[in-house]
């Protein structure tokens, strides 16, 4: 089942999850009850912009400007993947 993340969706991180840094693995990590997702730099960059205000399109535009390339598909896929796991709504 795929969870729709349209350009106008305003994603937010699940209330129970917390973005943190794991000093042992030296990786950003999303922590939540009974689980954790280790993030890469892209994942971290995306999630740092998931603030319950920005839309998917705005997040993609900001990161696109930062990396000088179109990242819409990456952002949408990544957020859909996390939405699938109910870590982003």
């Amino acid at each position: 089942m795929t969870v729709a993340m349209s350009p106008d969706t305003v994603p937010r991180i699940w209330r129970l999850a917390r973005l943190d840094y794991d000093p042992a693995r030296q990786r950003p990590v999303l922590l939540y009850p009974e689980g954790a997702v280790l993030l890469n730099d892209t994942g971290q960059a995306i999630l740092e912009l998931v603030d319950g205000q920005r839309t998917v399109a705005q997040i993609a535009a900001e990161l696109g400007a930062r990396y000088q390339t179109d990242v819409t598909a990456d952002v949408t896929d990544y957020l859909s993947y996390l939405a699938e796991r109910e870590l982003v709504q």
Partner: protein
Amino acid sequence: MTMERPTTLLAELTHRCPLHCPYCSNPLDLLRAEHEIGTDDWKRVFTEARELGVLQLGLSGGEPLIRKDLEELAGHARSLGLYTTLVTSGLGLTRKRAEALRAAGLEHVQVSVQDVDPATAERIAGTSSVKQKQAAIALVKELGFAFSINVVLHRANLDRIGEIIDYAAGCGADRLELANTQYYGWGLKNRATLMPRREQVLAAKEIAQDRILRYKGRMQITFVLPDYFEELPKACYGGWGRYYIVVSPDGKALPCHGAYAIPSLELPSVREHSVQWIWHESSAFQAYRGDDWMKEPCRSCPRKTVDFGGCRCQALALTGDAANTDPVCMLSPRRNVIDEALHEHAGADEYAYRDYAAEPQGA
């Protein structure tokens, strides 16, 4: 073999508990208060575990609220960045303690619920607890903790799975864990009374699947079939010595809850060793790590990197050798012991309640 970093520490702070559930995951030999390790020991264990890579901490028991230093321990865990879950029966969660735990930075509270039917709930808990649980749940909600309900499923409550799920949603739970009874320790002792019937399991599965969709986005529901009713075993704790460390009230470190029952294991103590040494060097954590220890049919089976041959404690309890294939597996030559257990329940309806063997429980 690359050694993983552990992700989860389950701190069994005490075996003391006001309830007497006949499926309790504590060992049959319950430890008394005087054997429990102190506040500083626990803090050091949390710090060392964090350094090793642990992300999740379970403050569990028994009933962890019986420990007066729970707030201090929760605060220390938060300062380390651990995501901490208090695993509680709810009994003893006064407003004062709930507020202190919140202030200490505790994030997640998991309350066990025995049943929605008060009579059965009391029969399972061996004591009256329903009102106190309700009060605890209200506090957890009011103070804004992340909130899970955990229900252990067995023959006497499985038919009410739909009502149980609706009840949890009505309580405003963020998560509901529908856990099957694990048949080791107390659960194995009470297996004939706890084991559900196949029709019950199949009906429950359908109801759960339906409710999982209905509550999607509001409440996460985890439900897995009891392994006795499956043909392939589950990876126990994600594999021996891969992610999990359990520390018992007296400071013994175990790769899983049930490992108490494997007499050949020399359980290392956090009183004598660092968590790092225990993880990397101790014989107990290496005993069934990877696949060198495996016998046939696991050794040459492609699933051995998926389920690691199933549960060692179950293999020992039911086949007499912890290195055997988990008898749940249809490829196990001993699968018959599982099939026989599925039929042994006729007539059994008495529980052996967990309790201390002799004298009254310590302070």
